[in-house]
């Protein structure tokens, strides 16, 4: 929470990277995005949660890859070369999320951020910081802090 909290209260022009997942549009604060790269097949990690695809080598750094769709409670993705991995650095952890495609860099007014309404899936809710209405679409802002749950690392 700490990463984005100041933005919520003050900033009204937060730069975000938006990406698609199926029909939905999500975005993540550009400050936590380290890089965007094509999908490469990760090495599966034993005894990991289902949404952890495995680990990849990013120029010497070994980092886990999360199936973002599955993390959001959607069906598992069967990624191929057309998919994209967004590498995030949250706190001192680096990890990647697999998404369909990165679409744009958008400037969002976080003052208009609305807390997500009570949703069916608690998983999805916890990963969403809120939603922002844009023109006729809805932008979901990801809460990167809980995307890679701490207990995963501890339990694993």
């Amino acid at each position, binding site marked *: 929470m700490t990463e984005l909290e100041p933005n919520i209260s003050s900033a009204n022009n937060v730069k975000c990277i938006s990406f698609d997942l199926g029909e939905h549009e999500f975005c993540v604060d550009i400050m936590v995005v380290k890089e965007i790269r094509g999908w490469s097949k990760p*090495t599966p990690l*034993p005894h990991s949660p289902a949404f952890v695809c495995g680990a990849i080598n990013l120029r*010497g750094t070994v*980092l886990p890859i999360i199936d973002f769709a599955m993390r959001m409670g959607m069906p598992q993705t069967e990624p191929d070369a057309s998919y994209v991995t967004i590498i995030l650095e949250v706190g001192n952890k680096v*990890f990647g999320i697999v998404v369909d495609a990165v679409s744009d860099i958008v400037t969002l007014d976080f003052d208009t951020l609305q807390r997500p309404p009570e949703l069916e899936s608690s998983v999805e809710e916890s990963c969403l910081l809120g939603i922002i209405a844009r023109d006729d679409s809805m932008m979901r802002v990801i809460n990167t802090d809980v995307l890679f749950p701490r207990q995963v690392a501890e339990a*694993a």
Partner: protein
Amino acid sequence: MSSDPLDEIRIVFFQECSELLEELEDGLYAMRDGEETDDTVNAVFRAVHSIKGGAGAFGLDLLVSVSHQFETVLDKVRSDQLETTPELIDLFMRCADKLQDLVQSAKNGQDSDASVCDALVAELLRYDAPAAAPVAAAPAASGDEVAFQVAPLDFSFDDEDDTPAASGGWTVTFTPHAELYQRGNDCCHLVGILKDMGAVSVRVETDNSPAWDSLPVETPFMVWTVEMPGDTSEDDIREVFEFVEDDCDLKVERAASDTPAAPQADEFGFTPTQLDLSDDPEDDFVPQKLDLDLDLPADEPTAATPVEASPPAAEPTPPVQVDDKPKAPAAKPAAAEKKTEAKSEAASTIRVDLNRVDRLINLIGELVINQSMLAQGFQSLDAPVSQQLSDGLGDLRQLTRDIQDSVMAIRAQPIKPLFRRMSRIVRETGESTGKQVQLVTEGEATEIDKTIIERLSAPLTHMIRNAVDQGLELPETRLDSGKTEVGTVRLTAVHRSGRVVIEVADDGAGVNRKKVREIAVEKGLVDIDAELSDSEIDNLLFMPGFSTAKAVSNLSGRGVGMDVVKRSIQALGGRVSLESEPGKGSVFTISLPLTLAVMDGMIVRIDDQLMVVSLSEIIETIRPTAAAVHQLTPTQRVILVRGEYVPIIDVGFELGFRPRLEDANNGVILLSETEAGDRSALLLDGIIDQRQVVIKGLEENYGEVPGVAAVTILGDGNIALILDVDGLLRLSEDTRLSDAA
């Protein structure tokens, strides 16, 4: 994570200490080997002096007291007042050992045993005393007040008893220099301490101070005179000023002395006078101290009187002793030059944070992988590659390898300091077991990864102790068996085919195989009927819980001996073995990788994944046959290996990659030994290759994974898991328990 600046200084101090201690040891070894020159003695002296200085700043009293006395005796050697004898050097070495201990315990914040220090100090004092007498007499004989001022500086190093007894109190005259204030000391505080010690009166002379309106604020003019009661010891008084002694003129004298009380003298005329005399070659007692004084006025901004002997003010060097002969003024510039030289030499090394080096090593590792991927990419291009391009690729490969080697060399350190530490172990062990031992070291310049050197210290210490305590015989026994009285422990290091091989050899009795066998049977480690080859018996020593020493000595033989050694060496990716010849001695051979970042691994296939098993954990590979594999319980299989049933761990299943392999014959078994010495058989799908792999942590960005020790990056850039055999064993036990439940 403390941001306390003092903590940072402490860290620097301890870093410097370890460097100084190394220097000290080097010097002492040179002295022992008869390579004693003025330079070596000076280097030793400087090292001790610097340690003392730093220790004082951190209030490490024991360290100060030992180094102080050590320094005093060294000073006598330096000034040729004391001949070095083997006994003296031995004492020096023990002092150096003690200093090392004290530094270590101070670093860890532990208390040290003061009694041992006291004993050492007492021994040092013995060497100090005879020489001290004439020095002590000198000031008394000399009515010259200037000589008197110099003498007390020596006094502080002498035994208090040598001080001529006089009645009356002490007069302490204290003239602070500007540096004293610049370094943040406070006269009021110092005088305050004296007051607490029972000062009778305190007087401040301000006669020399200019008028207020023209007073240069940064120049001290005041002179303090404190009368102390007679029952205070001079050492105590001097101790108060210990950390400012270079930044002030300090006189401590008996009030009853003939010397006129100093404050009445013109203080600033006084200092240059002292300087003139101190350069006088005739003034021949303890010339070093005079050299010391020589520099003080150079630092002293108030020394307005020009003095021919004064070094140029532009040379504010700390009082480092350069030569042990009294210096004629003309010789001074040469000495200064020498100093600069020494400094520039020291500047040729830099201290770098290890993390930065590691980061560089990581990046280079990536470069190497990247380069090979690039080369592969061009190869798979069907298009003809131009000569220029292929040359360029070849050069790139050469360059990346060269860079990798050079960067690895940064982490590599000569093994010499470790060997030096071992000579201390030999000395101490020999002493406490009553054996005469000499340590011969070879290949001290062999370089090996810094971390390995650090972590090798404990197992090597144990092996050396073992060699002396249990390998070597007592002197009488040795003579009886026609050997020399003095046993030899040989420590060698050599590079051999990409690894470092360290040998610990003794010329003792060798392994008593009969006894070893008996004990092993007695402890139930082997069957009484077991057929064992000589080397198998020798290697029983590495079994957990084995110890041949009948009585448990405090050195070795606690029953946790060689198995711990073996384990810690295995943890470093190394192997250890023993060869022994009765009556001739034993040789322990340790083979280590050059660096911890790389290890020899066997690339294996599990399901469709490539994984790595450390070669040091593999005893042998077996192609299982139906006859050898037995189903013990529905979930537990064992394999018969030379009469021993070894549990099979199906790695693919334990890691959750595939169901249990129904037919073990389709797989390959890796026989491995766990930390506890149990054997286990890892069932894999196939063996692919054997090669060196770079070890990468998984914890950093993910977390610990049971059964996985680390990961590595294969040539194609993909990640392969490095299996953790012990973790797999625990995993399989867990599954078995949950199956049972």
